[in-house]
């Protein structure tokens, strides 16, 4: 498959035609503008094609505009599988289960915070454990950890880390009922126990931002957001617990392909029939990791709030919290009928047209790369019809970490950010180039594509003033 073999459906939809000879069950669809098409890798096209070969896949194997080559599924991949004829694949969720984004909004204006940004970032850095091998400051017992796996963000509330309104403004209310710690290995618990309440490293961050530009005043108002308002974005996931749960099930499912006679084009796509015991076990374990991640972001929100209360006597409300690596049991309209499916989103965000807490489309939170703009969008009916209620999740890498390090220097990147009035704090300065804006696709172009396709409607732009890079 070459890029020129992609069939143009319209200016923003490119199709990989269904080829039953290579085992494709459905066509692939990639949402891209002409500019973004230049960044498309052959590896990503192959991965979209591979997903299209999995049993019970519905409609299309999708890739969002921030697509890039991953392992197994592409990053930016979305696929829905029939709950009877289809499969569940741990590789379709990834290792960082419920890696996601949360936005908190303060009542403060930019000019109240910006003069003290260095001090503020230093205080946040001290309060939130971050970086390589970061461990949480709270020690939980295995029994308590099981409660985290079962109850998600509800556990955090019960333990004083938030309020009811926080949960109301989380995807799935920060809790999946299907969490069951008996489906998790001792090792996953061992990895998860010391890390609860920690940011991690890599592309994870806590960013202080302000509302720089509003495109839809009414929706922004409904979400409680206004121009120049100071917000905080947290990007983190399920840490070692999620990584180990995925590892365990991926390993266990290696023999399932022959047991269930499922042809898989890549071992990372190992999967089991959606109606099997193994699938239920994985779904329970994955849900537990998702619950861990929501708890994690809730705890970090608490520490962010403590700092804002102490330093500015200001409160911070949860605007929303989205997962962008997850499998969900959802109902979607397929061929005129409402069907229950397992939607896998790997590097893709839910974009539902109805959110009970706001009465309109759900807030969709899209972080930019370090030091660039982030966006708040709103879920749409078109996303429900076009892509199982899904949209992009970020800018999407364009330079490998190695190439970024080779090309860009830490000091230069930090200086460049400083010139843009962004203060950055990290425990590992040599990693800075890996997350530099140049290592990513232009976020504005990604947002423009999802907005034009109406996979989500752009509401406002946030600009960073300070970052803690994990």
């Amino acid at each position: 498959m070459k890029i020129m073999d992609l069939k143009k459906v319209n200016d923003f939809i490119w199709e990989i035609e269904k080829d039953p000879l290579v085992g494709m069950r459905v066509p692939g669809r990639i949402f891209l503008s002409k500019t973004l098409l230049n960044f498309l890798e052959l590896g990503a096209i192959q991965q979209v094609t591979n997903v299209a070969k999995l049993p019970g896949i519905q409609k299309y194997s999708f890739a969002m505009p921030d697509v890039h080559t991953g392992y197994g599924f592409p990053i930016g991949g979305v696929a829905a599988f029939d709950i009877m004829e289809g499969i569940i694949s741990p590789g379709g969720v990834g290792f960082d289960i419920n890696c996601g984004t949360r936005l908190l909004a303060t009542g403060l204006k930019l000019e109240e915070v910006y003069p003290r940004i260095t001090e503020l970032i230093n205080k946040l850095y001290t309060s939130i454990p971050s970086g390589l091998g970061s461990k949480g400051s709270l020690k939980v017992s295995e029994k308590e950890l099981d409660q985290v796996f079962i109850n998600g963000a509800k556990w955090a509330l019960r333990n004083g880390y938030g309020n009811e309104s926080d949960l109301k403004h989380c995807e799935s209310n920060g809790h999946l009922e299907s969490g069951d710690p008996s489906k998790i290995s001792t090792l996953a618990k061992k990895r998860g126990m010391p890390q609860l309440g920690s940011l991690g490293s890599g592309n994870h961050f806590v960013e202080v931002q302000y509302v720089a530009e509003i495109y839809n005043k009414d929706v922004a108002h409904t979400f409680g957001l206004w121009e120049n308002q100071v917000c905080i974005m947290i990007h983190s996931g399920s840490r070692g617990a999620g990584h180990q749960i995925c590892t365990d099930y991926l390993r266990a499912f290696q023999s399932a392909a022959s047991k269930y006679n499922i042809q898989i084009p890549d071992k990372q796509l190992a999967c089991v029939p959606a109606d099997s015991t193994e699938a239920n076990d994985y779904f329970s374990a994955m849900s537990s990791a998702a619950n861990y991640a929501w708890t994690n972001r809730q705890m970090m929100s608490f520490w962010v709030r403590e700092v804002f209360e102490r330093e500015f006597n200001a409160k911070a409300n949860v605007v929303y919290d989205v997962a962008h690596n997850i499998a969900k049991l959802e109902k979607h309209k397929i061929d005129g009928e409402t069907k229950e499916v397992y939607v896998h989103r790997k590097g893709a965000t839910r974009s539902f047209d109805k959110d009970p807490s706001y009465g309109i489309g759900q807030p969709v939170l899209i972080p930019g790369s370090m030091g660039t703009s982030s966006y708040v969008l709103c879920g749409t009916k078109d996303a429900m019809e076009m892509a199982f209620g899904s949209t992009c999740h970020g800018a999407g890498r364009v330079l490998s970490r190695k190439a970024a390090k080779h090309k860009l220097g830490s000091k230069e990147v930090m200086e460049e950010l400083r010139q843009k009035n962004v203060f950055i704090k990290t425990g590992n300065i040599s990693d800075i180039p890996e997350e530099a804006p140049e290592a990513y696709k232009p976020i504005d172009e990604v947002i423009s594509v999802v907005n034009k396709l109406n996979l989500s409607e752009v509401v406002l732009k946030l600009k960073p003033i300070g970052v803690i890079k994990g």
Partner: protein
Amino acid sequence: MGADTLGKKNVRRYEFLEHTADVLFRAYGNNLSELFENSAEALESVMIDLTNVAPKDIKHVDLSSDTYENLLFDWLAAVLILFEVESFAIRRFNVNVKATSLTADCSGEKINSKKHKLKIEVKAVTYHELEIVKNGMYHVNVTLDV
């Protein structure tokens, strides 16, 4: 192609290849034991600067599996766990692969943040295109999620 890591007799042991989002390396070996040793060192070198790691203590690993690929996956996962859960960095691997089982002596020391330089947090070893190839020598491509 990345910087080669040459072993004794200037034989290439592993090298890092381009991957947009994650880390991809290719390890080599004259036999499976060597291939497993070199793969593990490649993984270790992603997580920590090995120059300061002393082979002071030994951790023993025994594994048994059904295929070579599954055995390699289990082995690398075990090395990752020693690093993350036991904070044990490994300087030298002595692996013996027999059929689809292995025994290994891993010489290293407890990670000390003052002495050692941590590099990248590896989330997991993936199965992406994991295939051991014998073409005279053995080689394997391993993708790490970072």
